[in-house]
């Protein structure tokens, strides 16, 4: 039964980010980053990046703190995983009607991972009949995944394994987690504090990564790392400073893993493992090796 459920977490479907200045955050998300603004309700602003109704919400309620949405296969999977999480010591709370509406989903269970990051386990997140139509040609194809800060890797791995994720590769103790054919949709970065590290959006190709890189330079938007390429997943990335210390990333070209069973590979904790092109993040401790190359 548990192995059949192993794939029942089907996608990372949204991020909700708490921001102090909602309007400034919204300007960044739409005018700079290239998301499509779609709705505003209860002080939240929702943005699209693909066929889903929304993949990003900026949340003005600071007590809320934001969350990451993980789509479950169906109600039965939600029930089963919720029960397993409860048994493993991760208390799960059923979301109220209004909490579900605020998340644009039919049902949800709210839980915290081992580090205390808020994770929403959701069923039937809303899709949109209209295609994604952004205000700027950033070349975004889809919301791809997230990086999470972890202060308790062991507990967090227990948590994500219950959701059906498995480690695809390691860089030092950074764990890339696979939930579908992509090399990873979630990456856990050991850190001094918990929280969302980055939200990654896939673009069409290298052209868009580079065009966005020059676009940001011209507008003096801080590039935190990149253009670069992850050694383990081969994914090209550009990490940008978003509102309130958040990181928004453009990505492309991640390795697609086949059906064939494979063992996670161990890469050394070195800047070369984090970027094989040679980019180094000067400002984000989780994205760099403090004393240079190993």
């Amino acid at each position, binding site marked *: 039964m548990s192995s059949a459920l192993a794939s029942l977490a089907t996608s990372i479907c949204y991020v909700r980010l708490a921001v102090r200045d909602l309007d400034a955050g919204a300007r960044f998300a739409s005018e700079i980053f290239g998301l499509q603004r779609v709705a505003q309700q209860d002080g939240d602003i929702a943005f699209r990046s693909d066929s889903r109704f929304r993949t990003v919400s900026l949340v003005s309620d600071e007590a809320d703190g934001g969350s990451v949405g993980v789509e479950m296969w169906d109600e039965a999977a939600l029930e089963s995983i919720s029960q397993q999480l409860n048994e493993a010591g991760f208390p799960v709370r059923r979301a109220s009607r209004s909490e579900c509406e605020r998340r644009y989903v039919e049902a949800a269970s709210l839980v915290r991972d081992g580090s205390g990051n808020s994770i929403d386990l959701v069923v039937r997140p809303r899709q949109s009949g209209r295609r994604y139509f952004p205000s700027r040609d950033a070349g975004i194809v889809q919301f791809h995944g997230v990086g999470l800060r972890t202060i308790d890797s062991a507990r967090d791995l227990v948590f994500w394994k219950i959701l059906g994720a498995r480690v695809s590769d390691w860089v030092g103790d950074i764990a890339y987690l696979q939930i579908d054919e992509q090399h990873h949709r979630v990456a856990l970065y050991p850190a001094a504090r918990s929280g969302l590290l980055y939200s990654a959006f896939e673009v069409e190709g290298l052209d868009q990564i*580079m*065009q966005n*890189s*020059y676009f940001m330079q011209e507008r003096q938007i801080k590039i935190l790392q990149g253009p*670069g390429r992850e050694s383990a997943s081969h994914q090209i990335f550009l990490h940008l400073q978003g509102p309130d210390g958040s990181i928004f990333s453009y990505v492309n070209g991640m390795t697609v893993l086949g059906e064939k069973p494979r063992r996670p590979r161990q890469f050394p904790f070195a800047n070369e493992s984090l970027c094989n*092109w*040679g980019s180094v993040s000067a400002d984000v401790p989780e994205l760099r090796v403090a004393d240079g190359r190993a």
Partner: protein
Amino acid sequence: MIQLKDVSYVRLGSPDLESAETFATGCLGLEIAERGKKTLYLRSDDRAHTLCYSEGDPRHQTVGFEIEDEDDLQTAAATLEALGHHVHAGTAEEAEQRKVKAFIGFRDPTGNHIELVVRPERRGRRYFATRDAGITGFSHIGLNSTDPVRDERFWTQVCNARVSDRIGDIPLMRVNAIHHTIALVRAPTAGIQHINHQVESNDDVLRSYYVLNEKRVPIVFGPGRHPTSGARFLYFTGPDDMIFEYSVGVDEIEDEATHRPRQFGFEPSSFCMWGARPAGMALPDKNA
């Protein structure tokens, strides 16, 4: 008509061969083929050499193009002389220095020193780089032109070059299937504007960007992508202010018979579709 087959080598004068060697091996990533007292031969592919430094004036810059055989060489000499170009017939010793069977030298209408060569040497051993820059070979040159319209006529009517695309009046010209082997660049004097080596992949272009930055080699343009040839590129400065380029993914002209040159406007996005701006490298000046 003079049938150019490919670009063969570049010869550069330099007052400081030691610096040239340090750059060529430590930064550019070429292989030393031969080191003489006053010469340095460098390889980038299976040819015996594609770049030669000799001690001297850095304004001495020569481009060699391969042609079919010695008969064609004689015909070319006659053609050029008939047009009023002074033609220098290479001596046996000079040919040996160039590792070719025979050659002639002349100046194009701008005054660039050009050599036409027969049977440039190849090497049995493969090129083995000193730095992993991913170089697959010497590919093309940017050539100064004081009058691009006149020089386009020379290269396309006296020689067999064909225009693949134009940016303003600047022609990118091919002599084989590769999008361009000669890129004319408007400039006040003769000279080689840049020397291009192809690399294996996008990764190599971006890696070199970070490596060369770390080595404090001035990056003068890129990383970027030319909308004309489709190539991803990086331009940087070497000894004596010579500009070198890495690029990957230059288009091939698929149908020689039906290809028509496209006209690109004279504007930054015609040189880079990613938005890179030249820094410390003059783009061909429209009105110079």
